């Protein structure tokens, strides 16, 4: 007894020291989490800080005299004439009118405020409505990238302003008058890539991503589920299935770039499939995502309690009936969740696509699985490598779009897991 109380005393005395250690250990944990979470916050803040301005475009709105004489055009429905017509002149004239101080010698400086493709806007309008010839129309035209940068980032020393002093004063005046204005950047969402930052958009990349993902989904989900069912329910214990299993586990951890090498050597060089197309991208990503889907589907199948299987088998259901009638419906939510997460990974994947040529300069929005295309993350990569800061801004914006896709996919997966998961 005295032994017991003596020891109790010793224990009591050691407590203070031990609790200090306890608190320190806890603090380490909290610090670790804080580090991880602050990295997340910094990353998001950085990207949003860099990219939010890309969602704004700068336009020039003015009355344009669509004067046939000035444009060497007297019939806008005549294709030959349209080819030869000068669509720039009316725009320069109109803008000169808005800048009272500008003289004839300033023509070039004034023209450089307009987007090089502004004249196409006028041409396209005339093509569609030849009757506009000879009228005066209020047109909203894209400004030059330099103007865009100046309007959005004047005073930010990360950006270099490429307008001269004179041009800056003009732009300030035009902003004052409301001729130069900013608005939501619909161009960014409705066009493909461009060498001109203010005309560059991500629609091409989004469509490319969707096409690629469609291929991946259509192939990887059914194949993955079928493979998981086979391995979990039917595979006999033998060398072959062991080997398949080891293979799948390893493939899940093989670096993605290796799949790029595979795609290059097999699909492009061996099968002679074209470079840069969504089909090949989708195939490569399918091979890459399959292991993930198989593994999560197997986990979902495993989580179906054996008692359900026994019950069905006990009544005389065949193995396949047990699987298709009972196991599959119960495991499906888990399989879907795993597949969504696998697809999200594939959507963000870049490296293997670089090797199969999805890194070209492609302006047209792809219209099919065999058209040249890039995908969102590759577009980010391409823009991030551009020296113009206006492209960095767009790369950040593209990242925001990509993350929006990914977060909503993950949220969907979490929601499904919460919603559909059955507890046994």
């Amino acid at each position, binding site marked *: 007894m005295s032994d017991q109380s003596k020891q109790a005393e010793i224990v009591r005395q050691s407590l203070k020291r031990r609790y200090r250690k306890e608190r320190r250990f806890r603090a380490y944990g909290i610090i670790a989490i804080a580090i991880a979470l602050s990295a997340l916050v910094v990353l998001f803040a950085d990207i949003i800080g860099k990219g939010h301005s890309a969602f704004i475009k700068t336009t020039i709105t003015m009355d344009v005299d669509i004067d046939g004489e000035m444009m060497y055009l007297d019939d806008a429905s005549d294709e030959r004439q349209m080819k030869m017509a000068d669509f720039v002149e009316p725009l320069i004239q109109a803008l000169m009118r808005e800048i009272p101080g500008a003289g004839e010698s300033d023509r070039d400086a004034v023209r450089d405020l307009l987007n090089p493709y502004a004249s196409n806007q006028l041409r396209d309008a005339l093509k569609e409505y030849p009757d506009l010839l000879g009228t005066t129309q209020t047109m909203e035209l894209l400004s030059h990238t330099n103007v865009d940068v100046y309007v959005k980032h004047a005073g930010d020393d990360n950006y270099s302003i490429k307008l001269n002093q004179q041009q800056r004063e003009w732009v300030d005046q035009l902003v004052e008058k409301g001729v130069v204005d900013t608005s939501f950047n619909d161009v960014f969402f409705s066009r493909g890539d461009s060498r001109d930052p203010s005309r560059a958009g991500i629609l091409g990349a989004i469509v490319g991503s969707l096409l690629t993902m469609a291929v991946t989904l259509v192939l990887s989900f059914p194949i993955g589920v079928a493979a998981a069912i086979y391995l979990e329910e039917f595979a006999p214990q033998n060398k072959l299935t062991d080997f398949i299993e080891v293979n799948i586990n390893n493939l899940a951890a093989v670096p993605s770039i290796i799949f790029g090498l595979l795609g290059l050597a097999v699909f492009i060089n061996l099968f002679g499939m074209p470079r840069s197309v969504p089909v090949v991208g989708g195939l490569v990503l399918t091979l890459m995502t399959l292991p993930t889907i198989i593994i999560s589907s197997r986990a979902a199948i495993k989580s179906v309690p054996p008692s359900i299987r026994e019950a069905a088998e006990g009544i005389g*259901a065949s193995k396949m009936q047990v699987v298709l009638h009972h196991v599959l419906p119960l495991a499906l939510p888990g399989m879907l969740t795993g597949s969504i997460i696998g697809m999200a990974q594939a959507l963000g994947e870049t490296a293997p696509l670089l090797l199969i040529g999805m890194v070209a300069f492609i302006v047209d929005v792809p219209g099919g699985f065999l058209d040249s295309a890039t995908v969102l993350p590759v577009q980010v990569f391409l823009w991030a490598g551009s020296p113009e800061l206006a492209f960095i801004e767009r790369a950040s914006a593209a990242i925001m779009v990509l993350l929006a896709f990914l977060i909503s996919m993950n949220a969907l997966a979490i929601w499904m897991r919460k919603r559909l998961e059955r507890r046994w």
Partner: protein
Amino acid sequence: MNTMNTTVTKEAAMPDETPVPVQEERPAETIIQEGATVGTPFADDPKFKLRNVEVFYGQDRAIKNISLDIARNEVIAFIGPSGCGKSTFLRCLNRMNDSIDICRVKGDLHLDDENIYDPKRDVVELRARVGMVFQKPNPFPKSIYDNVAYGPRIHGLANRKSDLDDIVENSLRKAGLWEEAKDRLDATATGMSGGQQQRLCIARAIAVSPEVILMDEPCSALDPIATAKVEELIAEMSESYTIVIVTHSMQQAARVSHRTAYFHLGHLVEVNETNKVFTAPEHELTESYITGRFG
């Protein structure tokens, strides 16, 4: 009742005494003769005729040369300490062991003179004839109706919806669940109480009109009231079915079965009239078990 208590008291009164080390010097292996079952393991014109059955899990021999007949329309109870192979043996009777990769069954097992383990034999049909009820109630996460209708559906027992309705009603009636369930046939089965679920599982097994029903500790997860109901049901069913029941409760075996088989470490030690097993066990091990000296 008092008599029993007295018995226990004998031991309870001497808690400080060293408990008798059971067969310390004579391990169970040596006092059991392999394949030699005491009592009356055989019957005329049996439903099941099982000879020299051995079951292996990989290298482990879980069932050691057991021979036994199970008569038509009898209720036979399997008892024995945990891990002695009761469930394993039971599951041989409808080849539920097939799904365990490492499990191999040897010996002759015949149901109505047909070899159960004939490689050409269709297990689906076998299981339709030999139904099974498990320890934990395991209804499908579907409606009550669909649970019962599942078997008839996959076996094509009903041509029309009304046939199926009849089968479902009959089975639920037989399982004593019709009154409780008839108004909520569309409710999911997992919402029922444990006892109701177990009776539903019985109804599900009955629905395919099996000839034999195997039950592996069907009451061990149930409360006393539900247990009583299931036992009542077993008594009723014994009129039309052959029933094999594994139980860890000697009292239950005593209450429901006609014959009792005592298993020990994979051996079938003794088979006798239930009455006899509990009053005058022939084998030393059976007696030790019955009197609670181990287990």
